[in-house]
């Protein structure tokens, strides 16, 4: 090893030690609120509450989880964007409702992507188009043909981007899909099991029905395939230039002191790496935890806004 490399290593090591020392020094003044943009009882709420509990145990900070509902995180992030940047609040939301509103009604949304400092992600929801096991088609092409031959079929969705994704297919194929809006995944699954709709979207909880043999996968809504169904193509793979990639992410007010921001991001990362959170994320969201980190989370939001534009045909 050359002297230069040794010195460089020493400097890097020293700066990391100093940085971690600084992080250990920073603590929120008063309680740290982890605001969850969804109601109690859902997957976001469950993950958020467990992350808050683990953060509290790991850091000794007084971390309080609270639900701030309204527009899938829109109300919660509106509040956070207007707060002074003191590093005492973290918002946990899902990117898609925020991006859809930023695209569709930017003049009404009192913030933009730069209103926040991004801290990381916890997982990406596994969006799948599924059908009952006895449906007369096995893939998207078959579903389109069946729909055309039968004057259209009903497809359930519980978030606007899922409908927009299928509108992209509809526009290209004139498949005549009709869309049934449901309040939550569970209601959509009930409609599929009950035979009221032929297919529908799910964001993770379909895996148990695949295991039981009640459902089959038709296509993946994300921009990459799912680990449990590697042979099922994405809608993007099939030549429709759009996808839906919902991330559970964390952000705080823009302009937060870099030291505080780094401490918050590190504390979240450490909590997400804990066995408890890893297990809960796998159990609740049926996917592996995925923390993109602060920088990549911002890039994910910027790319996501562009993709939402594609979904809206812009």
């Amino acid at each position, binding site marked *: 090893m050359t002297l230069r490399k040794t010195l460089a290593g020493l400097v890097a090591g020293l700066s990391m030690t100093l940085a971690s020392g600084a992080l250990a020094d920073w603590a929120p003044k008063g309680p740290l609120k982890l605001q969850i943009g969804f109601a109690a009882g859902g997957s976001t709420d469950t993950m958020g509450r467990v992350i808050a509990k683990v953060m509290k145990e790991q850091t000794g900070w007084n971390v309080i989880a609270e639900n701030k509902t309204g527009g899938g995180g*829109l109300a919660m992030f509106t509040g956070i964007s207007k707060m002074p940047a003191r590093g005492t609040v973290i918002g946990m939301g899902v990117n898609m409702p925020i991006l859809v509103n930023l695209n569709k009604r930017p003049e009404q949304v009192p913030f933009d992507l730069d209103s926040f400092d991004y801290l990381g992600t916890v997982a990406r929801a596994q969006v799948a188009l599924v059908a009952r096991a006895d449906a007369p088609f096995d893939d998207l092409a078959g579903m389109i043909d069946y729909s055309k031959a039968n004057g259209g079929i009903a497809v359930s969705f519980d978030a606007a981007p899922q409908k927009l994704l299928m509108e992209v297919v509809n526009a290209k194929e004139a498949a005549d899909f009709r869309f049934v809006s449901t309040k939550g995944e569970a209601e959509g699954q*009930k409609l599929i099991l*009950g035979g009221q709709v032929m297919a529908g979207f799910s964001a993770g909880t379909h*895996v148990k029905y695949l295991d039981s043999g009640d459902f089959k996968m038709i296509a993946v809504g994300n921009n990459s395939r799912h680990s449990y169904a590697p042979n099922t193509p994405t809608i993007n793979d099939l030549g429709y230039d759009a996808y839906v990639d919902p991330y559970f992410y964390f952000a705080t007010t823009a302009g937060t002191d870099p030291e505080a921001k780094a401490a918050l991001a590190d504390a979240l990362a450490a909590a997400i790496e804990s066995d408890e959170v890893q297990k809960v994320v796998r159990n609740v969201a049926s996917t592996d935890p995925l923390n993109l980190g602060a920088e990549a989370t911002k890039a994910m939001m910027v790319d996501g806004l562009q993709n939402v534009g594609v979904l809206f045909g812009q």
Partner: protein
Amino acid sequence: MVDFATMIAGFSDAFTLWNLGFVLFGVVVGQFVGAVPGIGPVMAMAIAIPFTFGMDPLAGIGFLVGVNKGGLVGGAVPAVLMNTPGTPDAAATALDGYPLSKAGKPLKATKMALFSSVTGDTFSDIVLITVSAPLAIIALKMGPIEIFALMIFTFSVLSGLIGASLIKGIIAATLGLLCGTVGADPEHYTPRLIFGQFELYDGFPLAAVAIGMLAISEILRRLAQSQGRVRPAVDLKDTGHAADRRVSWAEYWACRFTMLRGASIGTLLGAMPGIGSTAAAFMSYAATKSASDAPESFGKGNLQGIAAAESANSAVVGSNLIPLLTLGIPGSVGAALIISAFMIHGIQPGPLLFQDQGRLIYGLFGAMIMANLMNLLVGQVGLRFWIKVVAAPETMIFASALLLCIVGVSLATGGLFGVAVMLGFAGLGYLMASFGYSVVIFIIAFFLGPRFESSLGQGLVLLNGDLTGVIYHPIAMILLLCSAASLVWFLRQNQHAHED
């Protein structure tokens, strides 16, 4: 099918001292938070969920079930004793419970609520344990078109509650429906009537509206009437009769058909996700009133009215677990929280649950039955405690209740916005009650309106806009015919009442 040995093993798991201790703890917590205005069992369950992660699944889920069930009994207490229900389903209990309390029989009224609640709950638990699979299949057949028809039927039965002035009833219902339309529309997610407030995107927060309209407006009215005098929140004048402090077997037995009807309505509605205990409580109440020989005695302290409401709203809780356990679909917020507790332990409620986790499920069934018994025992002690509490001066009781409502709504809705909504609706409730408009009708319309709208939208998509297609849905057709018959019957009754 789960074999017999697994069932027995499951039940014996439930009866360990450790697990029973958690169920008992849950029931005590549930009854307490249910009885304290503003907080409620749902918030208690949400706070407790992360802590169940470190517990054995049966102990954790047994605790949550205890909280949920205890909350039902506790919820009736402020409704009956002070006319300040914290949830809309308890408002049905208050209709007869509060007049009975005012007549010097608070213990009788609360005991009837306790007994009928436990009876309804036990009935639906037995249905869940024995015939959940066929009921789940019926629930699956209830698609949006059938649910829409069921909502029509519900409204037609509930029209019996409108009271003397049809016009005032219609105005109250229309106002409730209008407030129910606030927020993003269910089809296209276009925001309606939110006036730039994103907090309203999901509509007015339910807890804030219910507590504001039902509890705070009553507290305001009572404080306004007190005019500085010091008097107890509930006048516990002793009638001198021991019979007024208890519910005799004869009185309980006289309500058997009412409770059976209530429990059946609650069980059926509970098995269908999303309809809920409010509709069940009021449907049962309205049906009991209509079937009674003395409908004019309702609203004046009739034990049958309490039995009808409590047996129905409690039965919903047990049968809410039918779609949850068999299909993995939660039927209410409470059930969604129980699903979360299952899922953080890596247990997926749904089609494979009985096969994979038979022992746990039968353990849960055992815990539910034990929770019902404990509800009865804890309730017997707890009711005496609450009656002592409400004997304190009303300025103290109502001021504390007001504070608790503000804290509870702030917690449940995530801040002061919910409190502002609560106070706004408290003012509306006060005005409506002062001018003779039914707050109950408003609340029912507000709660059922969004479900009615979404099933209408879904149904129209499924019928491809062709309403005549409904004839291919026999369950919906039967329900629509029943609705028509019910409305005709109601109108004739109304006509006879006016002629008399």
